[in-house]
């Protein structure tokens, strides 16, 4: 399944200047792919971008938020959150950093 990841302006240089990138993510169990699977594809294809979103401990950086649709994954299942068809994964710097 193709998952669209929306890249914040601060990180677009790491995505070839694009604000959206499409990632081909397997939905192995026939269900919608998870954020974790999506980030694994991101890690392979755009390691620099992945590093800015996720730490070496494979944890979401404290001041980065990831949304599936309008839902913050911190409150909707973390990296295990499913991405329904037609929903985008949106990465945004949080209001708390800086």
């Amino acid at each position, binding site marked *: 399944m193709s998952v669209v990841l*929306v890249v*914040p*302006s*601060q*990180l677009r*240089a*790491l995505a070839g200047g694009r*604000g959206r990138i499409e990632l081909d993510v397997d939905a192995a169990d026939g269900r919608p792919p998870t954020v974790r699977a999506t980030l694994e594809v991101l890690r392979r294809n755009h*390691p*620099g971008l992945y*590093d*800015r*979103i996720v*730490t*070496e*401990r494979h*944890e979401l*950086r404290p*001041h*980065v938020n990831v949304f599936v649709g309008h839902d913050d994954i911190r409150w909707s299942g973390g990296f295990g959150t499913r991405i329904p068809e037609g929903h985008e994964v949106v990465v*945004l*710097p*949080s209001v708390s*950093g*800086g």
Partner: protein
Amino acid sequence: MVDGGGDMPEAAKGVRAEEGDTVLLIGTMKGAFLAHAGPDRSEWSMDGPHFPGEEVYALALDQRNGGRALWAAPGNPFFGTTLRRSDDLGATWSDPEARTVKFPEGSELALKRVWQIREGRADDPSSLYLGVEPSCVFESRDGGDSWSPVQGFLEHEHRPFWTPGAGGLCMHTILPDPANDDRMGVAFSTGGFYRTEDGGRTWHPRNVGVRAEFLPDKHPEFGQCVHKVVHHPSRPERLFLQNHWGLYRSDNWGDRWEDIANGVPSDFGFAMAMHSTDPDTVYIVPMESDQFRCTPEARMRVYRTRDAGASWHALEDGLPQENAYETVLRDALDTDAGQAAGVYFGTRSGKVFASRDDGDSWQLLREGLPPVVCVKAVTLT
């Protein structure tokens, strides 16, 4: 605006400087600045901010091998820390896609901050070291292209017992022995002073005599909150240590420490700097206490010893002596290579002061900067 992004200021152009000039590398909580003066160090220009919005706790200018490799470790509050290099004194910076400083898989550690960038020995110009948080030493053998943690330190058996101070679990001091390739000292908060004698394979705490006021056992083997350690390359075995309460000297690479808080208003403080040519001269900036981390009596005073800690004397000419509730952090004090040393420090209130006569007199070089966390003075060769 749909994604919370915004353009950052692009004020930094870099420094045009020549041999004999002095460059001050100033790291703040919101970017880096470069101050520049000619050989007489009387007129200063300021360039910056570099990396606006990013904290810069570590800066270094490596002039070995005839080069001028300017290193910075800006920490983006959202997206993490990267190591950047400039070969034209800040006109342009590398912007690597891949983060080169990372803890390995399985370590269960993640890089929080780079606290120190330290060049290796003069006869090994490809060697560089980083002190990072959580406390570890990273090493590069290829001039900074690639980095790896020093394994013996990464896997140290004491690691579970090291705890962060207010600034974090920070490795802030790295002292390679210029006379012995296998020896190096490091200091971190908390943990204390550790030394290797076998090129980094094993590390042993060397804290005998150093107090830990915040623990029931005031003299543990390790766990001290050492704030800074300095030494002079001509006498590498003699170390000076500013502790979280305590001012010490060791004449044997840390095997034993002696109290040298002779005539200071407080032995609490963060910053400490070595005179570049006189191995008996050291500078500190005492703070009132751990409960009130400001200059004693609201007077901005640097203290200097010229006799290796036997006595300390206040330097205040040109520094504010009223209502100066200032804080000078551990890496915000440094000296240049002048025979009459330039001495420089920055404050959390965003002021930078400079002296060009060993600290006898001072001028306010700049105010209004973001909180200063790092000052490095370099005389260009």
